[in-house]
């Protein structure tokens, strides 16, 4: 076909500038592919961390922020622990009832989240666009050892703690446990609702030498381990799972607070479809005006550490850098195309003399530009795939730190004066991740290549449309 022959021969003649244009576009497109793939990989890693926190299929979570502390500096529910340790001995007071001497304080409580009535779960399940809902209690089991006395150089041992999840056995398909795989033993049965049985996380089991049949003490109560569960690598799941009813009976709403019978502190909700998430969020907020209703995207902001930094880097810097490089590549391609058109003014004047319409000549120039763009796109895909392979080969695991307030605040008189501390339960995990390329990204690369070629050709085409044949023929090469 004449069009193809002319196009091919012209590209061969301008091989050097065609290669420069193609390489420039390839660089821009390769960078876009690499950044998108890295960004997708980081988002997938974030999602896996979130999934382990909240379980598979959770689109919306409902919690409640506890009320502000009272003027005396203690929890708003008026319950108060105070600890005094000095050279003359130690005293722990709970609501004015005091005990002297060395002792261990063991508490199971809801850290930093207020209670929600379990009846809310049923109310939410009746909302339009909600396909599943479950309640849960996310708790912290804390143990602190108070010495009998303390001098100026005495240091306190940090509290030991582990996370406990009360699992809603009436709705077991949502929540953090639903994301795991039972490695040994078995999961809860519906009949375990009021039993002192537990499933423990595999990492926690290994570090505490636990197995199926061992016991674990939660809230000063012994639970028999019936199963070991593994979660996604790099996630930060609860360490011990017990039936919700048992958790409600043993836990308090804050240290020294009321028991949480009939209460949950997290409600997990699945929307009917991704498009309904926003509507579901609004409906729950209308139903429960004092609750905090969050979606997966807002939960991502709780995650800090290398994972969060990588997400920002890929999202902000990476995006703008790749756009800048692509823009520069298209600009250079446009300038080179215009220069080539200028050199061919006499040729185009001759074609017009032969009876070629401007549109036909423009189509020829655009064809040359788009061909160069497509070559650049193919090279760019190759560069992008190489970039992804390089990232996957050398990129280190990212860290993700999820910090949750323990809800424990100590007020006391230590050897050096008043003492106050509010330790957090914070977990840093290593998150493996990989850059992921999808068919959509490849398609985007092809589209960018064609658009880049069209834009470059458009500038040259404008030049041709302004060409007067007589002036063009008068040009001396």
């Amino acid at each position, binding site marked *: *076909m*004449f069009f193809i*022959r*002319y196009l091919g*021969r*012209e590209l*061969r*003649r301008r091989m050097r500038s065609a290669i420069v244009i193609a390489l420039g576009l390839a660089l821009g497109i390769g960078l876009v592919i690499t950044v998108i793939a890295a960004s997708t990989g980081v988002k997938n890693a974030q999602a896996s961390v979130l999934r382990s926190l909240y379980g598979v299929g959770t689109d919306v979570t409902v919690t409640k922020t506890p009320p502000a502390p009272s003027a005396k500096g203690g929890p708003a529910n008026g319950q108060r622990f105070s600890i005094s340790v000095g050279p003359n001995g130690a005293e722990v007071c709970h609501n004015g009832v005091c005990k002297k001497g060395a002792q261990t304080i063991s508490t199971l409580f809801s850290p930093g989240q207020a209670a929600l009535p379990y009846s809310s779960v049923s109310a939410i399940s009746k909302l339009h666009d909600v396909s599943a809902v479950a309640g849960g209690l996310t708790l912290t089991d804390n143990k602190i050892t108070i010495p009998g006395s303390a001098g100026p150089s005495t240091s306190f041992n940090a509290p030991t703690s582990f996370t406990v999840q009360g699992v809603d056995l009436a709705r077991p398909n949502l929540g953090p446990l639903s994301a795991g795989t039972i490695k040994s033993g078995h999961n809860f049965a519906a009949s375990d609702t009021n039993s002192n049985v537990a499933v423990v996380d595999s990492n926690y089991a290994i570090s505490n030498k636990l197995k199926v049949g061992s016991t674990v003490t939660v809230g000063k109560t012994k639970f028999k381990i019936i199963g070991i569960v593994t979660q996604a690598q790099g996630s930060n799941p609860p360490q011990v799972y017990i039936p919700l009813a048992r958790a409600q009976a043993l836990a308090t709403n804050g240290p020294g607070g009321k028991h949480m019978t009939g209460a949950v502190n997290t409600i997990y909700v699945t929307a009917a479809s991704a498009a309904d998430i926003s509507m579901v969020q609004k409906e729950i907020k209308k139903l429960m005006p004092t609750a905090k209703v969050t979606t997966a995207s807002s939960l991502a902001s709780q995650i800090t550490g290398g994972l969060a930094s990588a997400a920002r880097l890929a999202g902000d810097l990476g995006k703008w850098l790749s756009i800048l490089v692509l823009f520069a590549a298209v600009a250079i391609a446009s300038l080179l195309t215009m220069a080539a058109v200028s050199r061919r003014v*006499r*040729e185009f004047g*001759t*074609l*017009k*003399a*032969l*009876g*070629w*319409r*401007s549109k*036909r000549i423009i189509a020829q120039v655009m064809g040359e530009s788009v061909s160069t763009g497509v070559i650049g796109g193919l090279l760019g895909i190759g560069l992008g795939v190489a970039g992804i392979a390089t990232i996957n080969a050398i990129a280190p695991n990212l860290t993700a730190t999820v910090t949750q307030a323990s809800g424990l605040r100590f007020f006391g008189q230590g050897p050096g004066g008043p003492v106050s501390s509010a330790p957090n339960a914070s977990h840093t995990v290593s998150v493996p991740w990989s850059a992921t390329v999808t068919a959509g990204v490849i398609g985007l690369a092809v589209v960018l290549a064609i658009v880049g070629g069209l834009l470059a050709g458009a500038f040259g085409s404008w030049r041709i449309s302004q060409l*007067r*044949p*007589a002036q063009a*023929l008068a040009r001396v090469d």
Partner: protein
Amino acid sequence: MYVLTDVTRLYQKGRHTVPAVRDVSLQIPDGEWLAVQGRTGHGKTTLLQLLGGLDRPTSGRIELDGRDLSRMREAAATRVRASSIGFVFQTFNLIATLSAADNVEAALVPLRIGAAERRRRTAAALESVGLSDRARHLPTELSGGQQQRVAIARALVKEPKVLLADEPTGNLDEGTREEIMALLEKLWRERGLTMILVTHETAIANRAQRVAVMSKGRLTIRPVASTASGPVPFATSPGQEAPQPAD
């Protein structure tokens, strides 16, 4: 048939206005060979470009078979050039990346002829100029004379009514000049073309049936040494007598 009526073409050069063609009135019957002679810069090429619809006159009319080229839209003028007018240039103006055959075929592309028919006509055109064996050669692989013959084949492959040749022998040596002129004359006779040939050489101009002399944009007709078809109508610009050519 061409009818030119008071055709003027002015160019603006800064503050100055340059009259390239001034008040030219002329009739060119079908099948005539008209030479346009004159010194460099006196308006010969401009007149040729006006006749080919490559430029528009500042004032006046140019009619080709009753159609006013001077007021035609660019698309319409392009269609006229595609079907009815062939061009031959001094510098050949072949497309460097295309072979001789592809250069000739380029003239048929706007006519939307099927590929097979284009190839057949291209081959016939190259044969008529004696270059069948050079069909696949690039212009850089051809001599000046061969390149001009390809250009002539390109101009005539679409079987135009008019052939406009701008100094077709200007870049050729003497021997090749004669060759090309003989070829043009032969093709003119065989095909009954209307041929308008611009030249600054009297010897070449005298081969035509009629010679128009351009002098500072004005046109006069001068007698030729002999004409094959007898007396032809004179044409002048107002107030001008026929001057003698420069060389």
